[in-house]
């Protein structure tokens, strides 16, 4: 085991798979010599050569098309989109092409592609860099959407994503890249996709979160514990499809749920989960399912993001209201 930041764990996962399978290729803008704008790919070109780890021209749709073409000729591409806000340029590649490749060819071709992109607020990036677009991505049948919250999960989930024969959209929260460290095995290990993880056990209320909000939920749970309210914190890890078994089982135990996301309230992951809980466990609920989200605006400029983004205080407030319902 070694202490790693999330970005080190991500680099380590890619190194592991580049070593493990010579068909794994890694490419995108600035990922080669420079090592990525966040240094996620640092040293990998030097270690594996320019044929395996390479820069592309600056064009996201081109990068997506490249991944699809390499996928059908037997490679296992990891493509990096520099910031989530640039994903709109390659939406056809994602939604129109790779996510439906298996379907439209009746299983003849696959898209064994991992799309990596940094996202998430709280680090004062320009507009169209931090947006939480996972709800949009979750609308694509055929595409998994994975969001890790710890260095350990980040490595195991990324290795699973790279090994998956189906495409995976792997989102890396920018604030988590270097803000926490954790024990990560230096061995190759995998974490099952589509499986949520209970990051804290509790009996009074269920918090369902992912990405950076897992840590806000854990902080809220600790403070609530001082008032004898024990919250269970579920980290979704895969937001499309969500692990409803784990959620429903927890809600049946705690009878209360708060779904937490950094993204805007309208549509999205939290809305879907709230609906599923209502459909599957309404008679177990003591209070309506609550949501903690950002407001329905575009992501604001950096000066406003501290207020715009939900935090642990919002979660505590919503939890208390749910318990007092």
């Amino acid at each position, binding site marked *: 085991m070694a202490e790693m930041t999330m970005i080190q764990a991500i680099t380590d996962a890619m190194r592991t798979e580049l070593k493990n399978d010579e068909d794994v290729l890694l490419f995108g803008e600035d990922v080669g010599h420079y090592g990525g704008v966040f240094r996620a790919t640092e040293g990998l070109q030097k270690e594996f050569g320019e044929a395996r780890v390479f820069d592309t021209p600056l064009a996201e*749709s*081109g990068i997506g098309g490249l991944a699809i*073409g390499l996928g059908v000729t037997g*490679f296992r591409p990891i493509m990096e989109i520099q910031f989530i806000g640039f994903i709109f340029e390659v939406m056809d*590649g994602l939604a129109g*092409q790779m996510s439906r490749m298996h*379907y439209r060819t009746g299983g003849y071709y696959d898209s064994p592609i991992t799309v990596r992109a940094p996202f998430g607020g709280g680090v004062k990036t320009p507009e169209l860099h931090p947006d939480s677009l996972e709800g949009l991505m979750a609308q694509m049948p055929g595409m998994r959407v994975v969001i890790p919250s710890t260095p350990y999960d980040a490595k195991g989930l990324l290795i699973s994503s790279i090994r998956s*024969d*189906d495409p995976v959209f792997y989102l890396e929260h920018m604030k988590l890249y270097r803000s926490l460290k954790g024990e990560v095995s230096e061995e190759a290990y995998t974490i099952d996709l*589509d499986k949520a993880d209970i990051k804290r056990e509790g009996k009074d209320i269920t918090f369902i979160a992912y990405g950076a909000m897992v840590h806000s939920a854990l902080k809220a749970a600790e403070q609530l514990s001082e008032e004898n309210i024990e919250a269970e914190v579920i980290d979704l890890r895969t937001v499309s499809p969500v692990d409803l078994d784990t959620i429903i089982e927890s809600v049946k135990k705690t009878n209360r749920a708060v779904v937490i996301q950094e993204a805007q309230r309208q549509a999205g992951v939290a809305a879907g989960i709230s609906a599923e809980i209502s459909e599957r466990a309404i008679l177990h609920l003591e209070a309506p399912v609550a949501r903690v989200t950002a407001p329905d605006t575009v992501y604001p400029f950096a000066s406003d993001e501290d207020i715009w983004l939900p935090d642990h205080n919002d979660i505590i407030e919503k939890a208390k209201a749910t318990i007092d319902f």
Partner: protein
Amino acid sequence: MLQILDENGKVINEDKKPDLSDEQLQDIMYRMVYTRILDQRAVSLGRQGRLGFYAPVAGQEASMIGSHYAVDKEDWIAPGYRDIPQLIWHGYPLWQSYLFSKGHYKGGQMPEGVNALVPQIIIGAQIVQTAGVALGLKKKGKSQVVITYTGDGGASQGDFYEGMNFAGAFHVPAIFVVQNNQYAISVPAEEQTAADTIAQKAVAAGIEGIQVDGMDALAVYAATQKARQNAVDGNGPTLIETLCYRYGPHSLSGDDPTRYRTSEEDDEWEKRDPLVRFRKYLEDKGLWSEEKENEIVEQAKADVKAAMKEVEETPRQKVSELIEIMGNELPYNLREQLEEYRAKESSK
């Protein structure tokens, strides 16, 4: 513009004439006639409601067959939705092309060994994918190339530029064919771009570009054959613009070409018909006869009939099957929905 045969089937560019045997020349004509019949039958089947989506190809035979004849069986092809004939000659069974037309998933299952992507519906998406396929072939050390097709409208898409630029930057074995059939549904080519030719757009990507007479099978063959040789020799991609014309509507889904072009224009282009021109050329060489042509017509008609029979005997697809082919591993939601639809289907 590269042209080898004039409208009377006379060679006007002797030194550019490709080196093809008599059998090969006959084979090109055979394929063009066969394709014309396939098109006529498909239009008729479409009007009877027995096909799904279909984009007519008459007028583009020289462009399609001439270019495809220059690539190898092992090469890859990334077609647009109109490029069914090239796929057929690449080994995609006719009956499966009809299933594709009807939206049946079995239409997308390429037979083993046919290196082809499924016809692309999104204009230009195949162009960026072609850069990827070509890079894959280069990385695997193959001597294969990939040929992709789009139309004049496709040349306006961002993906067209991104794909050519990527292919140029990575120096990969790709051939981009723009079949400039004069209209993107109703918008004429001259409203599509202020550039004099689409071929010149290759300059911006740093690759070879050539404009050819797309109604002249020999010219299209010669240009593509050279492009393939360049690709195999490691000299990078080529953009080929074939100037041609589609006689029919954009598709059978309601397009009415009389709303945007005149019968005079149609007549003008029909004078340059690729089949007439090539037939004259072969007849002058004593390589073609009416009898030979009639045999092909009959064979194509019989093949269409047999393919339609196979299609009509193919069981309808089930929603449960569609759920099953969403991916390799079915996630929670799909497993649940699979059960639901299986139950629904068994109760019907």
